[in-house]
């Protein structure tokens, strides 16, 4: 098992390299001159040239990449062009907030989505199933940022029970987490339903029934573990959408995370920041996928015991 874990980590290195390469090159493919942008509109050519030299933009691209990578390994992502602080320093406190939001949202999604999917699968085509299916479809079609705004209108403007935005105690976490979780709840519910239905149609479920096992025990002891494997896979795949969703949700609720920071960086053309944050997002996604792979291995005895 440990060997598998190690092997997976090793195999992500080329992917990570690829990510940095990809990011590096597309960010430099910009039609425009970051030095000029930073220098400002009234700058003279000499001043722009100076800044360009400072940023190392006058060197050949390969050399730039080498410098970039060496700095990256030492966790130096450059400085923000707006605040002049190291990018790492700006990201670090906000990263915690984003991860917190994402984890809470995932937890909510599992707690609500999985049981809903199970109920729908066990009583297919009844009103319960139809309700779950319809709600799930709604959840997947709803723009998260709109949902967030509607929740604010209802809970903050009209009823005054929850704050509009910002951070603080737990009450600030509620609406953003629910908004972020909406799509995932729907996705998990649908996938749990189809996965369970698939499992319940398998031969070994008939065998269990033929043994005299009651329906509840069949679901709990025989079906669930088999259904979990595809569900976990889906959570892993959808985590990417979740991370993308943080950008929108944090903006709506003014949640101090890296999502909101990314937006302001794009609007402010803070390229080192943009680069740094996107790298962090990609890294989070890759790590989550490895984690999901591990859980998968743990659950499936065929892989574990060979």
């Amino acid at each position: 098992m440990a060997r598998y874990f190690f092997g997976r980590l090793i195999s992500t290195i080329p992917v990570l390299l690829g990510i940095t390469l990809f990011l590096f090159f597309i960010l430099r493919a910009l039609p425009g001159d970051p030095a000029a942008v930073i220098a400002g509109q009234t700058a003279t050519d000499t001043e722009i040239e100076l800044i360009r030299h400072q940023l190392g933009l006058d060197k050949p691209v390969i050399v730039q990449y080498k410098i970039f990578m060496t700095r990256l390994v030492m966790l130096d992502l450059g400085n923000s062009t707006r605040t002049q602080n190291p990018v790492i320093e700006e990201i670090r406190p906000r990263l915690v907030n984003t991860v917190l939001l994402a984890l809470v949202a995932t937890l909510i999604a599992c707690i609500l989505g999985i049981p809903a999917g199970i109920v729908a699968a066990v009583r297919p085509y009844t009103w319960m199933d139809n309700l779950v299916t319809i709600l799930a479809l709604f959840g997947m079609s709803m723009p998260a940022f709109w949902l967030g705004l509607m929740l604010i209108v209802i809970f903050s403007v009209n009823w005054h029970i929850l704050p509009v935005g910002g951070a603080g105690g737990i009450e600030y976490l509620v609406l953003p987490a629910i908004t972020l979780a909406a799509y995932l709840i729907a996705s998990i519910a649908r996938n749990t339903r189809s996965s369970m239905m698939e499992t319940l149609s398998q031969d070994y479920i008939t065998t269990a029934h033929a043994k005299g096992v009651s329906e509840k025990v069949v679901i709990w002891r025989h079906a669930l573990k088999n259904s979990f494997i595809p569900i976990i896979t889906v959570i892993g795949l959808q985590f990417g959408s979740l991370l993308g969703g943080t950008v929108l949700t944090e903006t709506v609720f003014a949640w101090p995370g890296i999502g909101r920071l990314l937006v302001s960086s794009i609007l402010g053309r803070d390229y080192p920041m943009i680069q740094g944050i996107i790298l962090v997002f990609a890294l989070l996604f890759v790590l989550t996928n490895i984690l999901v792979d591990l859980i998968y291995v743990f659950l499936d005895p065929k892989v574990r015991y060979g």
Partner: protein
Amino acid sequence: MVCATPWIRGWAMNSDSILSIRDLQVSFKTFDGDVRAVNGFNLDIGASETVGLVGESGCGKSVTAKAILGLLPKKAAMVDGQILFRNQELLQLPEKEMLRIRGNDISMIFQEPMTSLNPVMKIGDQIAEALVLHQDLSWTQARKKAIEMLDRVHIPSPEVRVGNYPHSLSGGMRQRAMIAMALSCQPALLLADEPTTALDVTIQAQIMELMLQLQTKLNTAILLITHDLGLIAESAERVLVMYAGRVVEEAMVADLFHDPLHPYTKGLLGSVPVLGAKFKSGSKSLDEIPGVVPSLFNLPDGCAFHPRCPKAMDICRKEMPPQTLFEPDRKVSCWLTTEKGVDHDAA
């Protein structure tokens, strides 16, 4: 020639039988209409008897077995008739009582050992589950007993195998494990649905031998469902031949093979290739029954076999022949052998 006595419907349970089925009807609701999978099925099985149920794919044999144990989907399947097991009418029994019978008094084993065992549950636990449910053992005790059962079905190193997952076992071993699971609570009746079809021929023989051995030891009756006539000839005492949801002939095995009465049975037996034999018609190809099995959506009127029967008469096209008793221990559903028929087959 020989007179037939019509078999009375609703005949009371034969005192020797542990299972008596009368006029079992099973229909499925599908999008394109109702499908009658079983159409008037009758059966008696005595204690420790081995009865074979033979027929082609789709004739309703598996459905019958599942109906006995109440394993058909409750919403889609409509089941009617009488199934008496030890004086209990199974079709009227509440689910709680059925749970006690399944795996305990009546067990079932299935065709595909690959897919019939839970891939994420250890073999030992799957066997132990039945024991915990029905024999009031603790899980530790049940697991110990599971090792014994694995030994009984001749799986080597049972103490090790008990902790294995199904994918580490070969097909034959998996089927043995299934048998261990089914017989762990010493049921009075074992329903074996094509138990050897998915296995290699040599393994088939071993598995059948094992089943018959255990049957004697445990006093279990077996309903052996298969499409393999050879298997029936070797293992069963009595046999029922099924076609399109009905039993067309029932006899002791020796009688059936020696002197089949129903044209379908004759066709089945005639089409089995025999090494070195010359075919009746003198041709070099296998005798086959012309036509195909009818779609259950579109069963012919009268006798379901009449479109393919070489001896079909007018009445065969209009009315379904009742199952009639014809000599002791011989039942046939064919107009040729009842009094109504004009043309009697002389053979």
